[in-house]
């Protein structure tokens, strides 16, 4: 497990709870403990009995991956064949994935002018999931033992009948959530060389997934709650995507001119069919989810169907002059079913120019500049990533009942729940890119530099609506954005001695500036947090200054606050904090990211160290926002205010409020997510060739990798690359591997 968060220990949580009651006058000293703890927890506290629940839950995971691949062929036939097995055991008991995949590709030349190809792939994923127990573990009282004297999991460990031990889900027979996913992917294609200059390709593909997810959860599991009725649930899904594309290509060379023209058409359609059944109080837990009919109450069923489709026509011209001037032009038009009638079709042209300067006479014999290519492109692309039927609007089911005599008369209904997005159209992005590929000193230094600008208009987003309209949100084309950035790749060969040490370095750097350029109305959309000049995902909130301190009573009182509460900046300086004082305090878009990979090899040993940094992004930290101000539950250990501890970090514990209703509580969540980490270190040993030959293998490599072991950030033990979430910590992996090439 990677960096996590420090959850309060028993004594720490006792202090928090006491302080929260002290603030409202319900606790004045340990004599009042009996008023604020239940008897069992009080006794456990006095006896020093408490549990770090997350530690009880989190163990070591593991991964295994075995793969064989075989390829070969003759003049008429070529093939590739592979089989793979992958197993991953998660950090939690009963979290395990098995994946089996097989793949076969065959190309067969019927004649010199006709080739038939097939490409088939089959994957089985067998995934046991654990319902997240960490949420429960992190919030429940630590004042109880995990196990009884016989070593059995104690179901209600903290003296009340509503707090379950988060370990109950791993008691054998209590919980199973299994997803069995079978995917078949295949296509057949035909390539016909009609003449030396004209060819035609037709390709028909299917991608079918059947998925079955079954859940059984016994009484006293996290899913059904304390003494809840067991639940059995079965979800089936059949997803299919069928594609068919046809295109013809004309290729010709006239002296120094090389021309290729392509014309084609494609269609694809996806369908999703789901069905679902569920019931409570299963007659025997041994049946799991394989006999939903054996549930006794609260039976529910459901099914759903949706279909989306896309049709495209396209043409492309590739032109090359003297192998150094290259031009590509594309015209395409796409029609998408999910967009509104009248807006379904979009037109997307693009063009690219390249100049391979190295081929010019003045450079061709230059050793210092071993490679040099300039690229310039402009293109428009479209996006219609919206779920089906948004343009139609829709109704959702309602449930009510009347009584007729002694019987209950169902009164199901439908109410307007989705407003028709009747103007929905393509989001388009015009991208301009300028790039250089270079190599110096006989390619000891190689790399590329790209500068780009992307102008997006008619941005497709779900926008919040004023709920007085009767609806909460709708898809819409909401505005324009611009992205500008630079990407640099640099590879150097620092030392390269064939028998001794070699050292290679790869350096990557990327920086991007994203901003909204225009909104539908005005330049501030408060409900959605969109602001002209700022990234789409910006945080609009109060700016926390600290905590009101003793001695600042009268200032705090102007804002109806007390010492110990969160103090925020009065942005407009009018002396009182109102929603007008919210401001844009950051965004989750990094300023830049950079990576350096150093590869060393010495004789038969290799060492690879990859250092990665991402800088400037703000993240919403679940740990930072899980401070339990009311002392009702446990949470991460934080530096909170008390009259004796005048910190500016976290407000005073207060049983008279709740997290949801504490003013400016949301300001506690934001943290600088910048980090620097050694993402992986790999040490490998290659068996010397002579020994390998004796073992009849052409290569044998043993390696070990440490992933995510070293992280530097402002977020304590937490690994910010996870993005703020607490329930699924970043894994640290230690990998041991073996590669054999026959």
């Amino acid at each position, binding site marked *: 497990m990677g960096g996590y968060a420090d959850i309060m220990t028993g004594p720490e949580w006792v202090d928090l709870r006491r302080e929260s009651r002290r603030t409202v*006058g319900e606790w004045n000293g340990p004599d009042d403990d009996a008023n*604020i703890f239940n*008897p069992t927890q009080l006794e456990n506290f006095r006896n020093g009995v408490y549990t770090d629940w997350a530690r009880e839950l989190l163990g070591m995971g593991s991964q295994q991956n075995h793969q064989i691949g075989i390829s070969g062929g003759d003049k008429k036939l070529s093939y590739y064949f592979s089989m793979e097995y992958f197993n991953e055991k998660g950090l939690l008991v009963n979290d395990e994935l098995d994946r089996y995949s097989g793949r076969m590709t065959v190309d067969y030349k019927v004649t010199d002018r006709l080739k038939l190809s097939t490409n088939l792939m089959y994957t089985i994923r067998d995934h046991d999931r654990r319902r997240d127990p960490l949420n429960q573990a992190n919030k429940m009282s630590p004042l109880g033992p995990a196990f009884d004297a016989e070593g059995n999991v104690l179901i209600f460990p903290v003296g009340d*009948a509503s707090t379950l031990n988060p370990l109950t889900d791993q008691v054998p027979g209590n919980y199973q959530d299994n997803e069995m996913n079978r995917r078949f992917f295949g296509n057949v294609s035909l390539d*016909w060389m009609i003449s030396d200059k004209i060819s035609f390709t037709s390709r028909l593909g299917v991608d079918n997934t059947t998925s079955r997810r079954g859940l059984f959860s016994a009484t006293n599991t996290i899913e059904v709650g304390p003494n*809840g*009725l067991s639940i059995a649930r079965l979800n089936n899904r059949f997803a299919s995507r069928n594609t068919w594309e046809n295109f013809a290509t004309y290729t010709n060379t006239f002296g120094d001119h090389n021309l290729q023209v392509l014309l084609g*058409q494609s*269609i694809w359609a996806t369908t999703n069919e789901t069905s679902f059944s569920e019931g409570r109080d299963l007659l025997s837990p041994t049946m799991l989810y394989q006999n939903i009919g054996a549930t006794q*109450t*609260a*039976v529910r069923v459901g099914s759903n169907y*949706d279909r989306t489709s896309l*049709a495209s026509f396209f043409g492309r011209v590739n032109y090359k002059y003297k192998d150094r001037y290259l031009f590509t032009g594309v015209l395409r038009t796409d029609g998408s079913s999910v967009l509104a009638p009248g807006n379904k079709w979009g037109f997307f042209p693009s063009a690219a120019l390249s100049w391979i300067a190295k081929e010019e006479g003045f450079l061709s014999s230059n050793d210092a500049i071993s490679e040099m290519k300039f690229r310039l492109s402009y293109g428009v692309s479209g996006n219609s990533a919206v779920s*089906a*039927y948004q343009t139609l*609007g*829709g*109704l*959702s*089911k*309602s*449930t*009510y*009942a*009347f*009584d*007729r005599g002694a019987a*209950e008369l*169902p*009164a*199901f*209904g*439908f*109410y*307007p*729940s*989705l*407003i*028709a997005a009747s103007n929905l159209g393509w989001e388009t992005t015009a991208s301009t890119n300028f790039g250089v590929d270079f190599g110096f000193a006989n390619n000891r230094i190689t790399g590329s530099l790209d500068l780009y600008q992307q102008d997006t208009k008619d941005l497709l987003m779900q926008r*919040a*609506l*004023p*709920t*007085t*309209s*009767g609806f*909460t949100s709708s898809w819409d084309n909401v505005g324009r954005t611009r992205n500008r950035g630079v990407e640099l790749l640099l590879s150097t060969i620092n030392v390269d001695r064939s028998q001794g040490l070699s050292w290679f370095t790869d350096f990557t750097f990327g920086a991007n500036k994203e901003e909204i350029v225009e909104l539908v*109305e005005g330049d501030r959309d*408060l*409900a959605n947090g969109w602001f002209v000049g700022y990234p789409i995902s910006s945080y609009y909130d109060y700016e926390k200054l600290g905590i009101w301190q003793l001695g600042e009573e009268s200032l705090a009182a102007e804002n*109806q*606050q007390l010492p110990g509460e969160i103090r925020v900046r009065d942005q407009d300086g009018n002396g009182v*904090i109102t*929603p007008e004082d919210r401001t844009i305090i950051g965004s989750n878009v990094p300023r830049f990211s950079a990576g350096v990979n150093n590869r060393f090899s010495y004789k038969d040993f290799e060492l690879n160290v990859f250092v990665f940094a991402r800088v400037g992004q703000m993240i919403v930290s679940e740990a930072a926002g899980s401070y339990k101000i009311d002392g009702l539950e446990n949470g991460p250990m934080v530096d909170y205010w008390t009259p004796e501890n005048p910190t500016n970090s976290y407000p005073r514990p207060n049983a*008279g*409020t*709740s997290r*949801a209703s504490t*003013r400016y509580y949301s300001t506690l969540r934001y943290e600088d997510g910048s980090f620097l980490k050694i993402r992986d270190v790999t040490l490998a040993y290659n068996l010397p060739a002579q020994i390998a030959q004796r073992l009849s293998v052409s290569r044998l490599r043993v390696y070990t990798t440490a992933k995510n072991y070293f992280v530097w950030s402002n977020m304590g033990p937490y690994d910010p690359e996870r993005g703020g979430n607490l329930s699924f910590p970043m894994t640290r992996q230690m990998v041991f591997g073996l590669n054999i090439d026959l």
Partner: protein
Amino acid sequence: MKKIFNKLFLLSLLSLSVGCADFLEENNQSGLTADGYFVTLEGIEALVNSCYTPMRFWYGKENGIAMTETGTDIFTRGNGMENPPVALYNSDLSGANGPLNFYWTRLYSALNTTNAAVKRIPDSPLSAALKLEREAEVRFLRAFYLWHIVETWGGVHLSLDEVTVVQTTANRTPVEEFYAQIFEDLTFAVNNLPPSSIDYGRAIKPAAEAFLARMHLTRGNNAEASTLAKQVINNYSYALEENYADLWDINNIRNSEVVWLVNFSADQVLNRELESPDGDILLRDGGNNSHLFFLMTYDQLPGMLRDINNGRPFARFMPTAYLLDLFDESVDSRFDATFQTVWYANRPGTFSLPLTDGSTKDVTFSEGDTAILATKYPMTNAERDALPYTTIDRNRTYGPDDEPRVRDRYMSLRKFLDPSRPTISQQQGQRDAFVIRLAEMYLIVAEAEMNLGNMGEAASHFNEVSRRAALPGQEAAMEVAPEDITLDLILDERAREFAGEQLRWFDLKRTGKLVERVQAHNPDAAPNIRPFHMVRPIPQSQLDAINNKDEFFQNEGYL
């Protein structure tokens, strides 16, 4: 070979020419659209049905109870309350309040749904008679939702149109216009609803009259209020239950006193309320949840285990000392019907019982022995220590100024206990939420006639309610004389009669007594409440989402 390719070419061309228009057309087979479905017979009935469902969000639900019972003179925050600002009126009560935003959203969705039904019923294939009846039902419900909106937030947005295109503005409509619409809708309902329905729980004429009586009383139209309330009393077969406690018997949910109700079910499939567009349920705990919230955590005390008869204790709301003191339990049966004061041991064994000096003594319980006794009177330490069970006397729960000292040891309101649930943990109860009981009609007449100066008639209707509540033989002791009738007496009687029934906040607001009574009787909220708290803050998400921010603004007083 070439022939095959020619065919392929042809086929692909065919797919282009024929296919494209159809190929990209959407047909949502699993879903429905308003214009496609509501024009059918089953569709219009479905739309009418869906107008009933939103009532279930407010009644019998945690936050609906919090907004109507806490922050009044009779209930305050218990240990587990998740939305304390509603009980305390502190500065955390703001537009950021989640439950307020939830109700704002659901009530306006309900308004839109009823608007759609009112508009579409006349053009539907229903028979002419049924058109009138269904429209009357829906207009009754629309008035019902409008009342919740206008009393909660004051003069906010009012629209009578079905929304079909994205709307980014809202209007500020004066309270008077809300009530004009409420009266118009209810008058239509009274004139067109049948006196009874084969479907118990459908809107009927007496329910509309009763609600209209409440509305007239609210607006000071005393004569109309009294007339309508008397019609409900006299023109139908409603009768007060003989025994107040019987009203709350889970086997007596359909009784002679219920005029308007929200129907809940024992069948969880029928408790599922509304689905969102992606198929989720909008509120997880369907059914009537009111059995959970008023109970103190008895199961943590010696000799007690959680069981179905004592209920699943969420400890969200506790009574103020003032409410307990309102009852004279020597003559009024409602005290014992309302509060559980004794818990009998269901976990036999020997336990160590804490004494007032911090030491302990061993006590042994047999099944059925008294394990906990709660009393609203103070006891001395010696008295408490002498008893062989846990005592929760007045001083244990309340301080010298009646401020709560602890919030998980108190007398528990037991009217809503639901021992018919199949498991102790099940939150969905089948108890119908009583919205209007006949007793309210008597008290409406009493209040309206008092306002009109007819004290005799006021007293006679008042006494119908208090006499029914009397312990056997104490009827005379419960009666009041015409000259004793005051607004405060009526409010006291309403507290005794309707405690927990989601009327209190509205009653105090209607009578202009909210601030006065909270300041006098609710020490938790007394320092904070101000006149501007007579309406709730408008959700900030609404204010953020509109384009006419100059015209639609936060209620006065809220930051």
